[in-house]
C-alpha cells in the first residue's frame, strides 16, 4: 500500500492541470466529471490507507525524492500516513467529493466553470500534501499552496473588486501567520539541525523547555493565521465573497482545520510546554466566545456560518490547549461534516433565492425547500450540540477536558460560547425557514435545488447526525484508542532525569483524563443540553413567536454600544487599517521613497555632481586671458612652492 501513497495527491493534481490547460476546449460536464473522478480515486485510496492503519500501528511512508539537499538542511519529499493522517485523509477526501458533486449543480452555467474545476482539485492536492507531509518544509509547501488556492477561489469572481480585496486580504493575513510558522521552522532547524518530524521529535531532550515554548508559540501563530484564531481571523468572514461550495470545502471542512491538525502533529513539542498550552487554550476560548457573540448580530447567512466556524475552531484550539487532544480531533471530525452541510445548505438557499444572502429578505422557506430545510436543521442541531447529534458529543468532551485541566474560568467562557453557538444557529434557521416571507414574490420564486445539489446534502446529513457514535462512550470510544498512538510519547530510557520528569508529569495528566467519573459525565451532559435547548427556545421565542420580552430590536437598543461593537466585528478591521496599513503606506510613500531615496541619496549624488560643475565654472574664470595674470600665477606658484619647501625641508629653520 505504501508505494501507492503518491497517487492520493497526484490524481487531483493531474485533474487540476488537465482542466486548467485544456479546460476552455472541454465541455463543462467533462471537466467536472474528471475532477470528481480524481477526488473519488483519492477517496478510495484514502479508505484503503485507513483500512491498513486500522489493523497496524506501523505508519505507511513513501520517499519520492530529495527536494532541497543543502548540507544539514536536508529536505526529503516523503509521504507519511499514521492514524492521525488516516482520519484527516478521510475527512478531506470525503467532504471534497461531496462538494465536487454539489458544485456541478451550483456552478452550472458560470463562464469560469472550467477554471473552478481546476482550482478545486488543486486545492485538494495542496491539502493532501499538507496532511501527508513528514517534514516541516513539505508541510509549509502545502500550507502556502492551500493559501494560494484559497486566494484563487475567493477571488474567483475577479471582476468584483470586493472579491479581489478579500482574496488579497486572505492571502496576506495567512502570510502573516506563515511568518510565524517559517520563523518557527528556522528555530527548529537551528536547534535540531533537521526539519524531519521524526528526527526532531527524537532529539527533543537536547533542548530547554523555554525554547520549546517559543517554538510552540511560533507554530501556534502559523496555526492562528490559517485556522483563523483571534488576531488573524479577520480574513475568514470576508472570504465569503467566493462561491459557496468553496466556503463549504475550504472555509469549513479542510483548510481552516489545517492549523489544528498541524498542532496535533506537533504533539510532542506542544505538550512539552505547559505555558504554550495555556496560551493556546486562552486564545481558543476568547476566539470562540468573541466569534460566537459577533455571529449573533450578523444578517448575511454565510457570515453567520463563517463566524460559527471561527467559534468552533476556537473550541478545537481550546481543546488542544487543555490537553484534550483526541477531543479536538474528534470535534474536527464531526465539525467538518455539519459545518460543510450548513454551508452547502445556505448555498442551496442562496441558489434558490437568486443570489440573495440577506436573511432579512428571507423567511418561511420551509415549504419551498423541504430537503434543504431538513438537512440544514440537522446540521444546525449538531452545531448547537443538541443531545443526540454528533456535535454534542465532541463539544461536550472538550468542555469536560477543559474542566479536568482545572481551567475553570476558561471552561465557563466556553459554556457561554456553546450557548451562543446554539442561539445564533437557530436564529439563522428560524429567520430563513420559519416566520413570514419577507421577499417580494414577483421577483423571487424560491424553489428547491436540483437533485445534484440535494443528494450531497443528504449524504452529508448522515455523518452530521451519526458521526458522534465514533466517540461513544465518552473518553474511550473507538476514536480514542485509534488516535492513542498518535498522542503519546515513546519512553526514552537513558534521557536525563529532568527531561523524564517533565514527561512523567505530562503522562499522568493524560491518564487521569481517561477514566473520568460517570457522575461528571452525566452532569456535563445535562448542562450542555440545557444550554443547547435554551438557545433553541430563546431563538424560537424571538424570531417565530415574536415574544415581546425577546424582541431582537429591543435587545439591540438596550445593548446599544455593545451591539454596535459586535455588529462591527469589534472594529478589528478598522483597527488594523488605521494602526498598520495606512501608517505603513504613509511611511513608505513619504519618508522612505520621497525623502530617503530621492532627497537624501539622490540628493547627495546630484549634489556632488552639481558642486563639481559649480567649482568647474568658478575655476574656469581664473583663466582671465591677461598674460600678466598668467605670469602672476606662475610667480605666486613659485613663491608658495619655494616658501613651503624651504620652510619644511631645508636646514634654514633647524
Amino acid at each position, binding site marked *: 500500500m505504501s508505494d501507492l501513497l503518491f497517487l492520493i495527491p497526484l490524481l487531483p493534481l493531474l485533474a487540476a492541470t488537465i482542466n486548467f490547460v485544456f479546460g476552455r476546449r472541454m465541455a463543462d460536464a467533462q471537466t467536472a466529471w474528471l475532477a470528481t473522478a480524481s477526488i473519488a480515486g483519492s477517496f478510495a485510496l484514502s479508505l484503503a490507507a485507513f483500512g491498513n492503519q486500522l489493523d497496524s500501528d506501523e505508519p505507511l511512508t513513501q520517499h519520492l525524492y530529495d527536494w532541497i539537499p543543502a548540507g544539514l538542511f536536508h529536505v526529503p519529499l516523503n509521504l507519511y500516513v499514521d492514524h492521525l493522517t488516516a482520519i484527516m485523509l478521510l475527512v478531506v477526501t470525503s467532504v471534497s467529493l461531496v462538494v465536487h458533486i454539489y458544485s456541478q449543480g451550483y456552478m452550472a452555467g458560470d463562464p469560469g466553470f472550467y477554471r473552478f474545476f481546476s482550482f478545486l482539485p488543486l486545492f485538494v492536492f495542496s491539502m493532501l500534501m499538507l496532511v501527508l507531509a513528514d517534514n516541516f518544509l513539505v508541510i509549509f*509547501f502545502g500550507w502556502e499552496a492551500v493559501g494560494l488556492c484559497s486566494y484563487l477561489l475567493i477571488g474567483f469572481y475577479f471582476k468584483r*473588486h470586493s472579491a479581489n*480585496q478579500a482574496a488579497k486580504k486572505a492571502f496576506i493575513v495567512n502570510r502573516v501567520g506563515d511568518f510565524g510558522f517559517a520563523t518557527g521552522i528556522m528555530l527548529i532547524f537551528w536547534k535540531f539541525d533537521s526539519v524531519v518530524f521524526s528526527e526532531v521529535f527524537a532529539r527533543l531532550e537536547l533542548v530547554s523547555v523555554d525554547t520549546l515554548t517559543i517554538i510552540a508559540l511560533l507554530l501556534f501563530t502559523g496555526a492562528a493565521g490559517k485556522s483563523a484564531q483571534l488576531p488573524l481571523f479577520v480574513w475568514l468572514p470576508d472570504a465569503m465573497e467566493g462561491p459557496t461550495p468553496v466556503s463549504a470545502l475550504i472555509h469549513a471542512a479542510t483548510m481552516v482545520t489545517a492549523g489544528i491538525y498541524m498542532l496535533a502533529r506537533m504533539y510532542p513539542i506542544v505538550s512539552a510546554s505547559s505555558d504554550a498550552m495555556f496560551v493556546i487554550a486562552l486564545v481558543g476560548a476568547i476566539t470562540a466566545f468573541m466569534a460566537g457573540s459577533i455571529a449573533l448580530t450578523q444578517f448575511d447567512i454565510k457570515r453567520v456560518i463563517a463566524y460559527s466556524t471561527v467559534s468552533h475552531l476556537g473550541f478545537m484550539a481550546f481543546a488542544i490547549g487543555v490537553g484534550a487532544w483526541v477531543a479536538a480531533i474528534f470535534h474536527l471530525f464531526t465539525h467538518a461534516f455539519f459545518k460543510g452541510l450548513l454551508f452547502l445548505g445556505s448555498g442551496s438557499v442562496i441558489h434558490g433565492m437568486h443570489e440573495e444572502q440577506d436573511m432579512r429578505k428571507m423567511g418561511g422557506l420551509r415549504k419551498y425547500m423541504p430537503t434543504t430545510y431538513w438537512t440544514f436543521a440537522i446540521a444546525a442541531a449538531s452545531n448547537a450540540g443538541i443531545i443526540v447529534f454528533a456535535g454534542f458529543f465532541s463539544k461536550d468532551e472538550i468542555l469536560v477536558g477543559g474542566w479536568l485541566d482545572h481551567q475553570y474560568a476558561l471552561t465557563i467562557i466556553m459554556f457561554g460560547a456553546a450557548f451562543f453557538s446554539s442561539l445564533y444557529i437557530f436564529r439563522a434557521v428560524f429567520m430563513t425557514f420559519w416566520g413570514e416571507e419577507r421577499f417580494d414574490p414577483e421577483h423571487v420564486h424560491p424553489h428547491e435545488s436540483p437533485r445534484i445539489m440535494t443528494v450531497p446534502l443528504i449524504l452529508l446529513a448522515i455523518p452530521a447526525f451519526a458521526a458522534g457514535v465514533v466517540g461513544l462512550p465518552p473518553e474511550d470510544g473507538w476514536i480514542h484508542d485509534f488516535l492513542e498512538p498518535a498522542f503519546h510519547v515513546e519512553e526514552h530510557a537513558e534521557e536525563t532525569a529532568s527531561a523524564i520528569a517533565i514527561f512523567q508529569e505530562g503522562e499522568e495528566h493524560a491518564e487521569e483524563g481517561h477514566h473520568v467519573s460517570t457522575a461528571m459525565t452525566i452532569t456535563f451532559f445535562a448542562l450542555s443540553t440545557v444550554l443547547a435547548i435554551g438557545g433553541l427556545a430563546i431563538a424560537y421565542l424571538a424570531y417565530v413567536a415574536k415574544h415581546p420580552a425577546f424582541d431582537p430590536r429591543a435587545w439591540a437598543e438596550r445593548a446599544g454600544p455593545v451591539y454596535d461593537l459586535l455588529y462591527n466585528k469589534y472594529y478589528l478591521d478598522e483597527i488594523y487599517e488605521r494602526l498598520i496599513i495606512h501608517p505603513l*503606506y504613509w511611511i513608505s510613500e513619504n519618508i522612505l521613497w520621497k525623502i530617503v531615496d530621492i532627497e537624501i541619496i539622490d540628493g547627495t549624488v546630484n549634489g556632488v555632481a552639481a558642486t563639481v560643475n559649480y567649482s568647474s565654472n568658478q575655476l574656469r574664470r581664473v583663466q582671465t586671458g591677461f598674460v600678466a595674470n598668467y605670469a602672476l600665477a606662475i610667480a605666486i606658484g613659485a613663491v608658495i612652492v619655494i616658501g613651503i619647501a624651504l620652510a619644511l625641508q631645508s636646514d634654514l629653520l633647524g
Partner: protein
Amino acid sequence: MDNLPILSMITYAPLLGALVLFFTPRVDAATSRQVAIGAGVLAFILSLAMLVSFDVNESGMQFTEHIEWLPDVGVNYDFGVDGISAVLVVLTTLLALVGIIASTSITHRRREYYISLLLLETGMIGVFFALDLFLFYIFWELMLVPMALLIGVWGSANRVYAAVKFFLYTLFGSLLMLVGIVAIYWENINLGNAPTLNILDLAAVQYSDTLQFWVFLAFFIAFAIKVPMWPFHTWLPDAHVEAPTIGSVLLAGVLLKMGGYGLIRFNLSLTPDAAEDLAPYIMVLSLIGIIYGALVALVQPDMKKLVAYSSVSHMGFVTLGIFALNMQGLYGAMIVMLSHGFVTGGLFLCVGVVYERAHTRLISAFGGIVSRMPVYSVLFGVLMLASLGLPGLSGFVGEFLALVGAFNSYRWAGVIGMFVVILAAWYMMWMFQRVVFERAPGEPPDPHDNALPAVSGASADVHDHDDEWPVDEHGVPQWPDLNRIELATILPLVLLTIVVGVWPEPFMELMRTTLETILIPFGSQGV
C-alpha cells in the same frame, strides 16, 4: 573535448557576432537580427556543452586556460570555471539569447542595438570566467559602455540622465576596486611571493588584518553598487525605468549577479578574516535593503519601478545569504541569484509586453487583462508568485535557505528578514491584482460587487494610443494575447522557475563542492 578552449569560445562567440555586424553596415535589419540570434544560440549551446561535461566533484577550477601576457606585472590570461560561475554563465547566455529574440520592439538603429547587446554578453561571460584580477577588471568595465549605450540610446524619456548616472556610479565603484587590486598585488609581493594577480594564488596567502580590511572595503563598495545594496541602489530604478525592455532584462537578469558573484569570489576568498569581522554590518545593510526595497515597492505607481525595487529587495537576500557564512546561506544566495534571473527577467518581459500594447507603465492605466490576455496573465501570475516566494517555485527555495543561513549566524537577522515574506506578498499581490484582475477602465462594474471602488475611470493617456487596437463597446482596447515570439521568450523562463522550485537538486549539486571549498576558511564548510 577538454583540449578545446571552450571557455574562450563561449566568451568570444557573441563578440564574433558583434564584429560581423559592425563590419557589414549595409546589411538590413532582418539579417542583422539573424546574425545576432545565431551568435546568441552559439554561445548558449557552447555553455550547455560546458555545463554537461562539468565534473561536479572536482573542487578546483575546470577547463582552465593559461596564456602568459604581462609577466612583469604578474598578469596572464587565466580562464577557469567552477560550480558557481558555470551556473551563472549558463544563466547569462540563456537570458542574452532570450533578450536577442525578444528585441522585436526596437525600431531605430537596430544594428548598433544588436552590437551593444552582443558586446554586453561578452563582457558578462568574461567576468564569470576570468581568474586573473586584471582580466576580471577588463571584462568588468567592458560591460559598462554597451549597457550605458543601451539605456542612453534606446531608452525612453530622460534616458540620458539614467545612462550617465548608471555609468558614473559603476565606474566610481570599480575605480576603488582597482586600487584594491593593486594594494593586494603589492602586499602579496612584499610577503615574498612571486608577482601574480591570479585569484587562487592570491587567496592562498594570509594577509595582515588592516590590509584585509581596506582591500575588502575597496572590493565591497564596487560590488555593493553593482548588487545594488541599500545606500548605493538609487541608480537601479532610474536605469530600469529608462532602459528598453531587453536592457532591463539583462540588467536585472545578469548585471546584478556580478555583484553577488564578486562578493563570493573575491571578498570571501581573498580577505576571509575581514569578511568574518564585517559580516554583521553587511547583514544589517542587506536587511535594510530587503525591507526598504519591499516597502518602497509598495507605493510605486510605475510597474517597472516596482519590479526594480523588488529586485533591490531580492538581491538583499543574496548579500544576506553570502555573509551568513554558512552552507545554507551560500546555497540560498546562489539560488536567489539564479531564480532572480528567470523571475525578474520574466517580469520585465511581461512589463514589456504590456508596454508595447498600452505604451505606458502606470499601473493605474491597466486592469482586467485576464479576460483579454489569459495566457499572458497565467505566465505573469506564476512569475509573480515566484517573486513573492511561494514554496514550489524557485524564489522560495533561495530565499528560505538564505534566511535559514542568516538565522543560524544571527537570530535577529533571520527574523527581520522573514518580515519580507509579508511585504513581498503585499506589493506583488497589489500590483498583480490591480493590473490583471479588477475591471478595465471603462468596463461596467459587476452587479454583485459589494464594494464599488471609484475605479479611476478611463485614464486619458491610455486611450490616445488606441488607434492601433480594436475597441469593444465600453471603449476597452482589445489587446491581443502573447504572440509567438513573446510566448517563446517568457515560457522557458516560467518553466525554469517551476523546475528549479520543484527539483533544485541538480543545480545545488553543481555548486556543492565549490561552496564547500569557499567556506573552508570559515570552518563551516560541511555543515
